[in-house]
């Protein structure tokens, strides 16, 4: 079992680089797909890029979506509603999590073979981590 992870950021570079950082810790077994920026590469969000990343990240065990803010969150919520109206698509959950810390926590937990709910949980637990 390996849950996929999608990172939705306003910025293409943030989504891509955090995906790379999380992959470095989680190892190659976890599919972590960035969905950053608009479909024409500006700052912003594209529901089509997110949908594509979700499909690419899914291997049948579900996908945990982590968002940075604003339009990333609203667009991911909209995609989720659309997916709920469909049949047979990937099982998707949005994690309410700090972006970088949640991505790392979710990726590492996914690499241990835990299921979608546990992966989402670990991302959301990252709000209670402290650094100093």
């Amino acid at each position, binding site marked *: 079992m390996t849950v996929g992870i999608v990172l939705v950021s306003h910025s293409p570079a943030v989504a891509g680089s955090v995906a790379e950082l999380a992959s470095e810790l989680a190892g190659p077994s976890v599919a972590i797909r960035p969905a950053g920026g*608009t*479909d024409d590469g*500006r*700052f*912003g*969000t*594209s*529901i*089509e890029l997110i949908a594509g990343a979700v499909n690419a990240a899914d291997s049948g065990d579900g996908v945990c979506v982590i968002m940075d*803010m*604003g*339009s990333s969150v*609203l*667009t991911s*919520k*909209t995609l989720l*509603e659309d997916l709920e109206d469909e049949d047979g698509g990937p099982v998707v959950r949005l994690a309410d999590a700090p972006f970088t810390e949640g991505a790392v926590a979710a990726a590492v937990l996914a690499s241990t073979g835990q299921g979608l709910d546990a992966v989402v949980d670990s991302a959301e637990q990252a709000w209670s981590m402290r650094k100093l």
Partner: protein
Amino acid sequence: MAFDAQTATAWITASEAAVKADEARLTSLDAAIGDGDHGANMARGLAAASTNIAERAPSTPGDVLVAAGRGIVAKTGGASGPLYGSAFRRAGKALGDAASVEAPVLGAALEAALTAIKELGGANEGDKTMVDALTPAVAAFQAVAADGGPIAAAAAAAADAAEQGLSATVPLQARKGRASYLGPRSIGHEDPGAASTTLILRALAEVTA
């Protein structure tokens, strides 16, 4: 005049034109308290709405608004995309498969649009968002409709109310969207989303006049 597929399409076309004409103003409002892309976002989203309508050639006003909403969600790029997109889709669904509707039903559809925006974005009146323009506009539309007034009068009242709602956002501090990061520095400016909502409702008044 009833609200049918042709009027619904004209509404989107007129909204697109209004947003393009005022694109620079929307952008500069967003530059003051956001990231300066609201004009471009709305122009792109409404252009996609028109394209999607043209491609699907929907035959009911409900399907026109659903098609517009899908185009807006797909292409806007900012927070306004899922918000307006959900609003138009929800309004379209509220119209069902009627070929044409009168003021009370259109008023209920506008109320459904407002509910969609509030549910998705979590904003309430006073948070300095598009909700501050749309809430009084829906109330004004429904008041005219409840008195038996025609769509044209209801839409004109809605546009006026939206304009007042827009002005009322100036002294507010933003509590939703990226403007909320600015805290008190968001005070003293019109909310860009409230400005685009006003344009869209004015466009409705024009095409139904």
